[in-house]
């Protein structure tokens, strides 16, 4: 990468830098070998490069978990905050700096358990950002406890004789929230699909929620085993307005045409079956974005002082 031009956001000088994959590389990723997070990182770096996002204008916000180490492994701005609380922080960033590209990386415990309230409300606010749920069906970092998405009867260290509850369906839950504007599902072991989904999410103007099925060889090796081995378990939801990768047709023969505008269809398809459905469940570009609704004209310091002075007049003795 070469550094040309002016780096100020608004100085008018044309920024002639071009960025390559390497420019987005942060610290060496320290996930276990075989961890699905590696491929997600790669896909994200590819997206950044493809979209030529400026590293300094891109912010990755995360919670706490294996997956939440993500920002450290990128050479962008990052905020590795609190377990479950990535979304409020990201909302604050984007609300006040709408010109930044904001990505959020969460684990299934992070997003769906401790962060559930924020997840519901971030969906409602529909702030323009990409929210990635790296779903390994388990608490990875804390070494194997049940998460809301752990399959029924799957054992963990806190529920050694198997979980008690049917797994929460993050897609269906998101679709239940007013203002949900982009909901998709993909799997990290299908890089092409993963990449296309990330791209669609990035291009959606609004809160793009992507659940990424993510393998954790350490704690949930068997969970996605079948889906990885038997492509027929996977059903691709395809549509011209959604994602359609003809190249994958050879492997993934199960397809269903689904228009992402169709919310009822989305909810029907989101129901759990033996099939694992990948693609865009729902997209609605028409919904307003919170940061737009709240955008206000800027004021100079002097204007503000003058206005405040007027305000003080109202309280004058």
């Amino acid at each position: 990468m070469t550094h040309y031009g002016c780096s100020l956001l608004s100085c008018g000088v044309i920024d002639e830098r071009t960025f390559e994959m390497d420019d987005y590389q942060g610290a060496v990723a320290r996930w276990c070998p075989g961890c699905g997070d590696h491929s997600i990182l790669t896909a994200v770096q590819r997206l950044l490069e493809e979209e030529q996002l400026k590293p300094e204008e891109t912010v990755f916000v995360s919670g706490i978990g294996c997956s939440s180490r993500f920002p450290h492994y990128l050479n962008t701005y990052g905020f590795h905050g609190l377990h479950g609380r990535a979304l409020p922080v990201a909302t604050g960033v984007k609300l006040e700096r709408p010109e930044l590209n904001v990505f959020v990386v969460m684990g299934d415990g992070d997003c769906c358990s401790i962060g559930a309230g924020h997840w519901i409300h971030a969906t409602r606010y529909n702030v323009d950002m990409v929210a990635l749920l790296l779903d390994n069906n388990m608490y990875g970092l804390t070494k194997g406890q049940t998460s809301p998405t752990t399959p029924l009867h799957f054992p963990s260290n806190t529920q050694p004789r198997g979980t008690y509850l049917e797994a929460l369906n993050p897609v269906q839950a998101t679709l239940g929230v007013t203002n949900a504007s982009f909901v998709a599902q993909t799997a990290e072991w299908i890089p092409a699909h993963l990449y296309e989904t990330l791209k669609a999410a990035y291009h959606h103007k609004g809160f793009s929620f992507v659940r990424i099925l993510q393998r954790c060889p350490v704690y949930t090796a068997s969970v996605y085993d079948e889906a990885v081995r038997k492509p027929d378990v996977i059903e691709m939801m395809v549509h011209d307005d959604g994602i359609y990768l003809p190249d994958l047709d050879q492997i993934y023969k199960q397809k269903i045409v689904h228009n992402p505008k169709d919310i009822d269809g989305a909810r029907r398809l989101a129901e759990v079956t033996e099939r694992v459905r990948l693609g865009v469940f729902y997209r609605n570009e028409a919904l307003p974005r919170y940061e737009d609704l709240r955008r206000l004209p800027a004021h100079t310091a002097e204007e503000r002082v003058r206005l405040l002075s007027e305000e003080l007049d109202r309280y004058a003795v």
Partner: protein
Amino acid sequence: MATKSKTAGKGTRKRAKDEGREIIRVSEHTAEIVSDSGEGAQKCGQIFGAVCAKMGNGAWTVEIIPAEIQPPPRSKAGGSGNRVRFGTERITNWGDATNLVVAFNEQVLLGRHELDALADDAIILLENMWATHPDPDIQQQWKEALEALSTRNYRIIEVPMEEECLKIVEDPRRGKNMFALGLFAFIYDRDLELIRAQIAHQFRKKSEEVYARNVLLMEAGYAWADANLDFRIEIPTVKSDQPMVVMNGNEAIGMGAVAAGMELCSMYPITPATSASHYLSDVFDKFGGVVHQAEDEIAAVGVAIGASYAGKVAFTITSGPGLSLKQEFLGLAVMVEVPLVVVDVQRGGPSTGLPTKVEQSDLLAAMFGQHGDAPHVVLAPATIEECFHSMVTARRIAETFRTVVMVLTDANLATGVQPFPRPELDPRWQQAPVSLSPIPEGKPAYDWDPRTGLSSRRVPGQKDGMHTATGLAHNEWSKVAYDPESHERGCRMRSRKIAVLQHTLRAPEVYGEESGDLLVVGWGSTKGAIEEAVDRARAQGLSVSSCHLTFLSPLQPGLKEIFRRFERVMTVEINYSDEPHDPFITDENRRRAQLCLLLRAHTLVDVDCWSRVPGQPLRPGFILNAIRERLAMGVGV
């Protein structure tokens, strides 16, 4: 004070049109209006307080808040209204007792009487419709109440408010308050033009007709009083030679936030903090500012931290329960060194406690409530004026020191109204905190000055500044680092900033003599009451001074030095402490008031405390008693 005003006023006469009318001339008076909730007493009191201030009186208005959402009408616990203490000089607190009260029924009056809110010789103007009410129970209650009231020296004047108001409106429940305002206007000889203007301001969102009706009602009250009262009360007004403004503490916080260049107020509703965000919600967008109501307190502080990390000026505002919820995020802000201002408008605790009532019991939670070592700044404005300026100070410190600054106010400041010198605004307060200039190569994310712990801020958009802020232990590159050295260095740098700030602070001033028998130490909203108590004590020849702390973390320098000059030191606070002589309480196990604990650890001086949690501001008279008691002189006044 009651006694004083009485003697001062008694027998003095004014000539002119008040021929034959007794003119009670006093340097200050405390007037209140109390009604069932929903009868508008608060509006009346607010207008009256503002008018007094605008005419050039010192004033302090406090709300009388009922204990329940919808108290039944005519109940002792249901009184709602305002109490206005005003005088020729500056008034710094709500005082001891009410000298004149307008009450809409005898039950709310009884409630005030039982709370000991009324001076022994208070003048009472009481709606008398109840005496002859068709419901015999009510007649009976009236009788019993008047009997109970007769144990004191009150002067009760029955006023046919309902009857008079019915001449103008159909539903006097929505008009009596302006009639009462008219009573006050006559009694205290207030400027009618000013009153009309204030009514116009109060009902600015309502129709012209509403305004006109309210003025009529007010004038009716005035006329009735003129025709029927044989006294007036004169409190000389002195127009201030500097421009003054009048508002409550939450408005001052809101306006201070604007003055400080804040761009985002991220909050979740909670009494008594909410009204500050109501105020901001009304005006903030004029300034380009946003009030974000988050889904909960945790999200509220999270959004503020995100905005601040992104280079904006953000604060969050809450009260006790919200503070508890924010603790985890506050620790994070300290750890990643994101500047953040947090306002805690304290109320009664623990738990949901007394949501509408004053207490100063969040001090230790504000200081120590975050797990791990999370050094940060805590300051407490003592007056409504300081509420305004504390926001400017808080922002400056938060940004200079890249840390969390907590501003502790309370329900007393939040709802109290007081005139103060109009702040001189400074455009520099509004400056953007950071530029987006590129980061020079080799400059770490935390370029800590090893001596001071200070480092320069960095925000997204700055080229070559990329790094990941993290709540994990980290080195200066913001890389996760678990080695002993990195962690110890991080802890040291964050702590050092507090010491550096401490070096920039001045010793607090001593109010009164620089040495003596007793030093009373306070913080926050109690300042006015403490200093008034000290004045009275000194007037009685007692060797007492006081000292009020603005900074609680770090504590201002010189405290030990000051304390050493007094025989005894005692804090006065509105938070719980065990009474020394209670069963099982020993000097050893006594749980002391919160500032007291801090000061003992800090100075090793045997600081005592006198503290109460009545859900009300402290009365200067009670503080005076405590002073006398501590000086082993028994209880006076």
